[in-house]
Each structure stands twice: as C-alpha cells, then as structure tokens.
C-alpha cells in the first residue's frame, strides 16, 4: 500500500515552495488533515491559517491570486466545495489562479460519516466555467499533478483521498494534463476510473483475466477538460463501457463520459458510483464492499453484465 494522495500533496507542495516563491497556501483549521501543515512548517510566511472560515479563505485566495500569487486553498472536499458561490464569483468568474484542494474525498474516508465526505464536489466544480477538475490515483500521479498545477493558467479543483492508495506509477511517469492513461489492454470491456477506484479497477482486471475476460482500464485524472479522444476510441474498440468513481453517480466522471459518448458515439454506459444517496459510517473497506467499489464487486459486476 502506498501513500494517501493528501500526504503526497503536502510533501510535494512543501518541496515546490522552494522553487516557486509565488506559491501561497491557506487552510481552514484542517492543515494537519489536508497535510498543508508540511508547507506551513517550511514556509510560515506564505501559509495563512484562516480558522474555520472556508468562504473567507476562498475569497482571500482569490485576492492573492489576482496579485500574482498561486493560491492553494485547502480543506475537506465537502466543506470547501460547499462554499460554492464564493468559488463561482471570486475564483471562477475572476479566472483567478486558485487551486481548490479538496481532501477526504468520497466514502473512502470511512468512520467519520456523511457530513465529512465529499460526495458531490466533482459535479459542482465541473459545472463552473474556467475551472479544471483533477483527481490523481496514486502518490506519483499526485506529485506530478501538483507540479503541473503551479504553472497552469486558470482555476483548478484537485480532489484527494484520506486513505492510502496502491502505487500504480513509477518515477518515469509523465503527467499529461487533460489526457487519460490506459493502464491495461483488453477489448471485452473498458472501465474509466478516477482517483481511489483506479487501483480497484486494475485489481478487477486481474481477477477477470483469470476468467478469460480482458478489461481495458483507463485512468481519468483530468475530469475536466476530459479526454474525448480516448473515450471515443475505447468505446469503439470495447464491447461494454463502465465508469467508476467514489462520488455521487450524478455529475461526476460517469456523467462526463456519458456526455462525450452521447454526442459522439452513442453507446450503453454502466456507471458505478454512489446511487444518489449520502454515505454512512463504517470502515473504508466495508463501505467499498457495500457500495460495490472494491475490486471483487467491480469484477462481479463486469462479468455479469457481459453475460447479459
């Protein structure tokens, strides 16, 4: 098991602080959880502790960005995305170079339960003009994404996990903004996965391989702007299409893929995500099993769908 993507973020931003004096980081009393405290320790002058004031933090981040800084505003995904109108006007409409860092994404946070889970954040951020939406799937992808984010022009939403994730990439990985990454070959079915569900999808492909089913796994780290090309190509080449995300089934990756295909290559899509419900408390493993997010459940779902 590798690191959580929030830890990878904290370590990377603390490193980048030396290289890029324009980086500033803000947090709303969760720096020990978002891991922005790693930056705070090294660069106390460029770290702003905002207390529990997410809306004000977002507005101040925008003001800093409009004055030449690149602002990383950090909190739990649910709390920060919840200050939607401030993100809409002060960040998106201003086209400010703010990076909204939403950690503790999905039911994967486990025991803390629904009010601490970011479950609708991709949907919200995706519908804001000027915004890009990214979700890395492991430590190395997070590191490369955060490096990229410093010089990106325009606002970004970056969604990170509380829980540790398997390592998928090695040091040779080259992050390409807006491009999907094919992780396994196969034409029987394709699964577009993002964030914590990428490694589950990969493990599912190994289970299915033993049964003679070849599953193509595609990692979508940039949900907006989405890689239309890889989606259309895979839909053409593969029998069945799945999407998988630890997020409400409405408005997230599944919707983004459906939007692309319905206009370019109409095809049946099976979306895996939270079926328009809130989460609940439990261990991450128990929750992933209950909602069908673990590798075993994904494999069963794909196999049974192929038989239909």
């Amino acid at each position: 098991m590798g690191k959580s993507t929030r830890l990878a973020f904290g370590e990377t931003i603390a490193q980048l602080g030396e290289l890029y004096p324009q980086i500033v980081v803000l947090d709303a009393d969760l720096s020990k959880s978002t891991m922005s405290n790693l930056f705070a320790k090294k660069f106390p002058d460029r770290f702003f502790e905002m207390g529990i004031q997410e809306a004000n933090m977002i507005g101040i981040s925008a003001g800093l960005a409009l004055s030449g800084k690149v602002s990383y505003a950090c909190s739990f995904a649910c709390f920060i995305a919840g200050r939607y109108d401030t993100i809409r006007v002060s960040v998106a409409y201003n086209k400010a170079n703010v990076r909204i860092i939403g950690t503790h994404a999905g039911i994967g946070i486990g025991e803390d339960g629904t009010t601490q889970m970011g479950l609708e954040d991709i949907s919200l951020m995706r519908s804001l003009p000027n915004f890009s939406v990214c979700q890395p799937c492991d430590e190395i992808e997070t590191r490369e994404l955060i490096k990229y984010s410093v010089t990106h022009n325009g606002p970004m939403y970056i969604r990170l996990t509380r829980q540790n994730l398997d390592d998928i990439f090695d040091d040779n990985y080259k992050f390409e903004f807006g491009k999907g990454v094919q992780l396994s070959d196969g034409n029987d079915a394709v699964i577009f996965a993002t964030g914590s569900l990428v490694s589950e999808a990969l493990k599912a492909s190994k289970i299915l391989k033993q049964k003679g089913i070849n599953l193509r796994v595609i990692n979508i780290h940039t949900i907006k702007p989405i890689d239309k090309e890889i989606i259309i190509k895979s839909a053409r080449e593969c029998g069945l299409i799945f999407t998988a995300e630890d997020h409400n089934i409405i408005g997230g990756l599944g919707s983004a893929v459906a939007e692309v295909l319905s206009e370019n290559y109409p095809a049946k899509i099976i979306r895996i995500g939270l079926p328009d419900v809130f989460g609940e408390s439990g261990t991450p493993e128990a929750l992933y099993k209950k909602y069908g997010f673990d590798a075993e459940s994904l494999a069963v779902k794909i196999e049974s769908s192929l038989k239909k």
Partner: protein
Amino acid sequence: MYTHKELQRIANELRIDIIKAISRAKSGHPGGSLSAIDIIVYLFFNEIKRTKENALDPDRDRFVLSKGHGVPALYSVFARLGLITNEELMNLRVLGSRTQGHPSYTDLPFVESSTGSLGQGLSVAIGIALAGKLDKKDYRVYCMIGDGEMQEGQIWEALLSAPKFNLDNLCVILDYNKSQIDGYVKDVMNLEPIKEKLIAFNWNVLEIDGHNFAEIEKAINQSKTIKQKPSFIIAHTVKGKGVSFMEDKVDWHGKAPNEKETELALQELKKLLDING
C-alpha cells in the same frame, strides 16, 4: 490634488452621467450609486490618483467595490479618467459591452475583482492587501461595502480575519445609506451598534458624513497613520443623494428612472452644478 469644491463639481457631473447611463440601460441601481459617488470620486482623484498609465501598475493603490451593484458610479469615474470611453459608459448593460451590469474583472480589469454576489469583495481585498505585505509593497487597498451587504456571514469572517493579519494597508468604507431592497436596514436586519462591534473586532473605526469631502479626506488621512490595524470608515450617506425624489427612498435601490423622471433628475443635478459653481 483637487480642491473640495472641484471634487464636488466632478461628483455632481458624474451624478448626471450615472443617471443618464442607468436611464439608457433601463435598469440598474441609482440609489446606491449616488450615495457612493462622493467617496469614490475622492479616492480616485485625490488618494489613489488613478490614471490611464498607472491603472494596472503592480504598485497601484486598489479600490474594490464589494457592493457591485453600485458599479455605475465606478464606471462614471473610469470614463472621466479615460479608462473607458464615454460611449462604453453609456452602453452600460448592453450586450457585448465591457460595462457589465455588475463588475466583471475579465471584461474590465480596472474593477480589480468581479463582485455583485454580496459579501465577497472584502475577502478579495484582504487577499490583495496580504499579497502587498508579502511582497513588501507600499500600496493601499480600499474596499467599499454596502450596509445590506454587511448582513452577509462572509463579511463577518472577513472582519475577524483582517485584524489578525495586522493589515494596516487596508481601509474599508461602509456606504451606510440605511436602506436595502426590502426596506430600511434597521427593519430588515439591524446592524447597530456597528461602531462598537468593529471596535470589539480590533478595527480602527472612524465615522463620517460620506458626502462631506473635508470629512472624507480627514478620515482617509487618519487611516494611513494607524499601524498594525485595518481601518473601517462608517460613512453616513443618503441613498439617491442629489436627486430629491430619490433621496432616502427604498424604491430607488434597483430601478431605472423613466424618461420623465430622468429629465427631472437631470434638471435638479444641473441646478446643483450652477449653485456650486
């Protein structure tokens, strides 16, 4: 530097432009534009000293209009300074114009930030002031908020935070015209006692007549001498100031005058110019 008499004349001339622009647009917010214009004129002409040349200078003093609906007042100043054309001012709210109904930063960067969703501009102004401190720049940040706007929760978050960061380069001006869309502020959601609240929040608080240039000048100058603390000027103003039938009338918050009302308003404002020379 302009004399107070010259500033008064400019403000009254711009009142005419504001009425003309809103009347042509057939929508907009005359009440809060007319209450704010004297303070905005003072800041742009005698304090910020905005010119075409320094309009985007990284070292410029900034003015953020958090009460974005008062933007006709700001556009009228921009036009007078040559930052936009008079035609653009008169094309307020017209499709394709940079003079959007509420300030749009990507259309017109001189507004410093898009505003209009109330409660947000003050946080942005604090961010600009923080950046100034970080970069060791001498610029000052002025931010005008509305009284109705002060009911927003985000304003109180911002009011808590600016003193924490010792932002003596920040000066907030409250355009306290006492009314908002649904009625008088004291009835809709009373703010008083404002001064005591802000003193308790560790602000340097001043209270003035927002239509008196001597008082505006004195307060702005005093705010610049205070170290380690942000300043907050409670500017008592009259909604619709300068047009008798609009003054202190809630109904003129967000309504354009019709042709006849426009004519009457312009007559009154022209008379003001004659009286004041």
